[in-house]
């Protein structure tokens, strides 16, 4: 028997992240060579490493292929509506400040339909960790162009190539006030995991853009091969430039990809400024929020 014919069989072993996954929902729905599983993998590794008590972590997603992530994590998790992951998470976080609220959602969800919430959450510096999956399109609906689709890429609603100017996402969130901004690709698993870990411990609005291969629609429509070919493109074209001015992070079709940690700064969060300003204004008349209702009060 050839060596190649005998794969290493190990059915009874347990994946190190099993406790963080809803194993009864695995395999997930994502396509072969899609990068979403990789990004989720990095997120869970970071959560595991963070040492944050698991019950204190909540995951919120919007709608889309990326948005399905919430359904796979063995944590308190919310699959909300298209575009509304950030405001839902805002309510969750402000009503229980002890929670570490992590968002995992797509470019369309966070930046198109949910764009207004994104810029305002960044402006307020709400303490949220956002993992924004940029697969350059609306994948779940079959591959339409979106706010991050590079010019010239062909999508179902841009059959002759997209001609809209895409967002430079790190620049967008940076200029709105995000206090932690990074971009990695699904190939940079160590950097990405580390960034998520840092963001989990960062106080304030953190945004990590993950350039992720969508094999089934983006790659196929643009004849770029499959997800593995896109990883190879990332490999050959990405340049780590930590601390670079986010203005310089534009992405062009199959062009150079600037990745790295761009912003990591301290700034009072929404809750900090609220508490400070109300204490100053009201003195000892100010009664800070006491947290959610306790179970024992119920019927």
């Amino acid at each position: 028997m050839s060596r190649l014919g005998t794969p290493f069989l190990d059915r009874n072993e347990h994946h190190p992240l099993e406790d963080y996954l809803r194993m009864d929902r695995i395999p997930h729905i994502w396509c072969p060579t899609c990068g979403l599983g990789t990004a989720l993998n990095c997120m869970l590794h970071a959560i595991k490493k963070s040492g944050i008590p698991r019950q204190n972590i909540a995951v919120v997603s919007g709608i889309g292929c990326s948005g399905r992530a919430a359904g796979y994590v063995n944590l308190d998790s919310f699959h909300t509506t298209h575009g509304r992951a950030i405001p839902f998470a805002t309510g969750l976080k402000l009503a229980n400040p002890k929670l570490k609220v992590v968002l995992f959602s797509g470019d369309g969800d966070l930046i198109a339909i949910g764009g207004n919430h994104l810029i305002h959450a960044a402006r307020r510096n709400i303490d949220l960790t956002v993992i924004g999956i940029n697969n350059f399109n609306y994948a779940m609906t079959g591959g339409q162009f979106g706010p991050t689709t590079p010019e010239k890429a062909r999508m179902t609603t841009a059959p002759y190539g997209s001609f809209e100017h895409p967002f430079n996402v790190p620049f967008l969130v940076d200029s709105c006030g995000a206090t932690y901004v990074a971009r990695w690709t699904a190939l940079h698993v160590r950097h990405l995991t580390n960034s998520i870990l840092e963001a989990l411990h960062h106080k304030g609005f953190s945004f990590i853009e993950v350039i992720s291969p969508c094999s089934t629609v983006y790659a196929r429509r643009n004849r770029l091969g499959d997800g593995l070919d896109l990883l190879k493109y990332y490999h050959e074209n990405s340049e780590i430039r930590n601390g670079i001015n986010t203005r310089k992070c534009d992405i062009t079709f199959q062009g150079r990809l600037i990745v790295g940690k761009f912003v990591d700064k301290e700034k009072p969060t929404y809750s900090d400024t609220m508490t400070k300003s109300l204490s100053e204004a009201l003195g000892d008349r100010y009664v800070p929020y006491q947290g959610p209702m306790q179970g024992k009060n119920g019927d």
Partner: protein
Amino acid sequence: MKSNTPAVLTGAHYWDGDFACAEGAIAVGCRFFAGYPITPSTEVAERIALRFPLIGGVFVQMEDELGSMAAILGAAWAGTKSMTVTSGPGFSLMQENIGLGAMTETPCIVVNVQRGGPSTGLPTLTGQQDMMQARWGSHGDYEIIALSPSSPQECFDLTITCFNLSEKYRVPVLLMMDECVGHMTEKVVVPALGKIKVQHRRWYRGAKEKYRPYVPAKDGVPPMVKTGDDYRFHITGLTHDQRGYPVINPACQKQCVGRLVRKIKDNADKIIILKEEETEDADVIVVSYGISYRVATKAIADARKKGVKVGSLRLITVWPFPEKRIVELAKKTKCLVMPEINQGQVYLALERCAKGMCKTKLVPHYGGWVHDPNDILKAIIEGAR
């Protein structure tokens, strides 16, 4: 030492409906508010912004009503009583997430201080034109609860009732005020703290490992947990099974949506609050709600002076619609008259229930002001013939 301002301002006050609504929410334990300013509801938000820092609540002014609605759902799942307030245009923006609230069975309150529509319509003038939107505004089949106050006192009382119903049935509850009631100033009596009935959250009491988010109690409503207590639950707007996991097929749809519908329908008798006056041997019964009830009372008094036997049925709960009672009344009266500041919305439900057993008469109004009582009077007199 802290000079604490009490949460419940026991005593008699002169408040407008918007203020009374805010105070009702505070009194029943609402501690999270997210909203976006819109006339004629803004005073509620302003009052909350002023009061919450004194009583330990979180007020957040969101970037829009889509965000406000999503935020109160998030806060509810954090384990806090939450509300938002708006008017027509904002109510339209909230609809998708009201649906998420219904689907995920999230207790929360949406107050709509109605103004004239459609579109920007009459920002400062009254209307009752969002009543069908309250019932069917979000897509899909679902049941909702909507109450309508006729006075500032009721804005206070019914806000409390709304929260209690919402906790009991785990559904977003809508308080359908209108500009007139919202801006009307009257005496509002706030009872002592102990006298306010509070429905607490129906916390799950079983073993942690056994928790499934959508296993209903006897009345069809599942108990709830909150985020951060290590239940590791999943909530989705997709059709889901009792574990909360998405299951995309007709059988699960029937089970999932079926229970959302039944938990309200089967408990309708407990949810419906009506006020009846002299309906027993009435020839004509005026069915009304909100500000229109107050106008109708004048018409009813005038009609009685003219010797017409006229009764009144006020819908404090508009949705679910009191179908049973309307059928009973339709059997023994000549005519049901309904004034509404719209072109016939709740009237459609009335007509459907009367099923031709008696006459029904709509007294419509385009909005901007209340009815002329004489128009209602005319309908009463015609109905009595």
